[in-house]
């Protein structure tokens, strides 16, 4: 098939400026599009990351005490609360901890393998737990054993953290022992030795922020109930379908047992779905923004191509008429404008690929972003090629309808 590239090139040479502008616009659009969509991907990739919890059936209560009490009293109160919650209809199990996954902040500490190490092997999230923790959260124990009731100690906020046993996540075990057996090994948490008694498959850290990304799934669970005058978290797992009813009943039952407490109106009682929603709010916002920017950018570029191609068609009605009169078919005319667009957007895309990589490099240096995946570049190239052809199609079809008699009219 004769692609008529020669005549198209010579025609383009006579209208360099217009072609160059469209090519530049396509190049910039491609560069921004690839990088914006890559940012969307990066932000959204966390969103579906599982925490390791039985999320559908879990809710969390933030209990804050009013008035002064000794640490022994606070612990007795907390245990009485756990009993009340456990007796509620629909509740499967209850535990208490200092924090929970996706909460935002909490206790992180350094892990070392030897007491004389100068720097930490890794950072890790610390969750305080009783013997119900693993079952309540629905964690999967892949090695060793769960805590027993006798393992659990009580710790006041100002006490030193020195548990003799811990459970770790598989991610932490792999970081420390590179696939070797973890159960029975010793790690140093905040300077004191602890033996690993169990490994759970998966449990996410409390923070999803960028600074915590390095240890997102490296977690150490300590057999301690933490008592603090500031209060504590109760984590409740219900039987399927009972979540809403139990969430309503729980605060009332706690207040009925002891009214000297408070629940924050916004954060006091949250289903895990709400916890997840809150944790990723800003990532979702950024992803939406990037998505909207990409869509509008494509629309504007498409509109620009339609506009400029229409003008070229209008400008050349007479030439088109002449070609039609000399025997060119309507297909030939459509093909002419589509090939012309292909040449122009093709060179724009070539430049755009370089620009996209340069922009990505700059984002890496300046904002610590990751390297652009080639799949995004390929997708961007495909989208812009198709967009260019689609945008040129309507004016090209209009051009093909120019009658041969146009050749005889003044232009």
């Amino acid at each position: 098939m004769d692609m008529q590239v020669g005549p198209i090139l010579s025609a383009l040479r006579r209208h360099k400026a217009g072609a160059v502008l469209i090519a530049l616009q396509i190049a910039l659009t491609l560069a921004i599009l690839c990088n914006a969509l890559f940012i969307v991907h990066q932000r959204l990739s966390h969103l579906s990351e599982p925490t390791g919890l039985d999320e559908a059936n879990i809710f969390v209560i933030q209990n804050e005490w009013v008035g002064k009490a000794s640490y022994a009293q606070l612990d007795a109160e907390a245990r009485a609360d756990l009993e009340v919650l456990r007796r509620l209809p629909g509740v499967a199990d209850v535990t208490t901890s200092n924090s929970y996954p996706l909460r935002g902040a909490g206790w992180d500490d350094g892990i070392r393998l030897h007491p004389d190490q100068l720097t930490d092997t890794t950072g890790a999230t610390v969750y305080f737990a009783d013997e119900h923790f693993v079952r309540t959260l629905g964690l999967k124990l892949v090695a060793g054993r769960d805590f027993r009731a006798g393992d659990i100690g009580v710790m006041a906020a100002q006490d030193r953290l020195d548990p003799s046993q811990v459970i770790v996540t598989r991610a932490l075990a792999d970081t420390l022992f590179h696939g070797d057996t973890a159960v029975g090994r010793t790690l140093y948490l905040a300077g004191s030795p602890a033996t690993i008694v169990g490994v759970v498959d998966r449990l996410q850290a409390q923070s999803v922020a960028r600074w915590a990304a390095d240890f997102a799934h490296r977690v150490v669970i300590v057999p301690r109930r933490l008592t603090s005058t500031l209060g504590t978290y109760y984590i409740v797992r219900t039987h399927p379908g009972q979540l809403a009813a139990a969430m309503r009943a729980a605060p009332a039952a706690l207040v009925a047992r002891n009214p000297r407490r408070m629940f924050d109106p916004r954060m006091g009682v949250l289903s895990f779905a709400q916890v997840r929603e809150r944790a990723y709010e800003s990532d979702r916002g950024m992803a939406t923004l990037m998505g909207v920017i990409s869509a509008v950018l494509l629309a504007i570029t498409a509109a620009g191509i339609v506009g400029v191609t229409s003008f070229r068609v209008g400008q050349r009605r007479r030439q088109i008429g002449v070609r039609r009169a000399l025997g060119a078919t309507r297909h030939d005319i459509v093909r002419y404008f589509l090939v012309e667009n292909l040449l122009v957007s093709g060179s724009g895309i070539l430049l755009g690929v370089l620009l996209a990589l340069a922009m990505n490099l700059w984002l890496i240096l300046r904002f610590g972003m990751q390297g652009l995946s080639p799949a995004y570049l390929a997708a961007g190239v495909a989208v812009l090629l198709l967009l260019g052809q689609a945008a040129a199609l309507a004016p090209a079809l209009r051009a093909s309808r120019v009658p041969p008699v146009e050749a005889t009219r003044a232009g």
Partner: protein
Amino acid sequence: MFGYYFDLAMRSLKRNKVLTGLMVLAIAVGIGASMTTLTVMYLLSGDPLPGKSARIYYPQLDPETGADVRKNPADLLDYISAHDLWQSGKADRQTMVVFGSIKLQPGLAGQSPFMADTLATTSDFFPMFDVPFRYGGAWNAADEARGVRQVVISDVLNQRLFGGANSVGRTIVLNGTGVQVVGVLDHWRPRPLFYMLVGARYSGGDTGGYYVRPQDVFLPMPTALDINAGNFGWFSCWGKPDRMDLRNAPCESVGLWVQLDTAAKAAAYRRYLDAYDAQQRALGRLSHPANTRMMSLHEWMAYQNAVPSDVKLQTWLAFGFLLVCLFNTVGLLLAKFLRRSGEIGVRRALGATRGAIFAQCLAEAGVIGLLGGVGGLLLTLLGLWLVRQQPVAYADVVALNVPMLLLTILLAVAASLLAGAFPALRASRVPPALQLKTL
């Protein structure tokens, strides 16, 4: 002459409404996106203490005695160093700050207790940072030393507890202890909350949280240490702390800010800081190598990378977006002007100079810019509204201001004139004779 060009421009624009609409829309969208992000950027990167920030400094030293030696000193001081430097009174003004939270039981029946953010500080804090008062004022230095049971509360807390009435002299209960309100702040919203800007440099650009409004309860330092022991924020500890005893804890938890009115005073204070550091080293209280710093507030904000990286990234992207919109407009204007080559040829043949053709085309581009600017302004308002709906700490301060409004229109017109310059130049080069020949 300009009136005539304007008239010609309007006629020409009306001739092809779809195309005109497209160009105006492209400019409007580009301007809307860039002005939205630029406004947020302007609001977040401004001076938190206009007219004063150059005289505010943040002295630092390394108080740790543990095995790990930091390259840069921690973002806060230990209580002993901060208190020694504060007590010396060597600066024009000086204040200590410790963040915390406290259980607040309102005096009125029917209101339930809640946790309030607190700042334990010293009396210089208020005059030093030009903090405005609606009612009353700060506690005095002599009372502060005695651990007086007095507090200053924010306008927001005053609204919540007392419905906005003058609450000076009223009592609130903090952690079971009654304290008297001596001052109520007026609206005060420094951006970022500069005196709390610690640890931001570790956040990977996630600094939105440093744009929260100030704390609700300001307590004299000794009072706070009495009634809120155990509930302060800690930056970092190098030994095992007794969490109830902040004064002797081997932890960094206190910020010290000083006001130094002249460069000479700043240099003198810097020497004093070094001397203090050396003296403490000689006494054996400090053991790490000397590592003192004294940044100005501006330097501190740059060091902490205060502006959220998402906001910077959005600003860059928005300007890339505007650039695409401009290329789009240049291409369309070029096509539009050159399509009128015949008409331009006639005008040239009838005696119009190249300059006249250039001015006429530019007037057309300017009108498009003006229309795009108005559209861009509306889109900027929409964009800022969208930012306010986002879950960010600075949502409440995001609004269009006069300089940004003027800049919007100016940017739109300047951008479209720039976009119009090249097509207008090309149009003005259309030779008269050639065009007449083809007619």
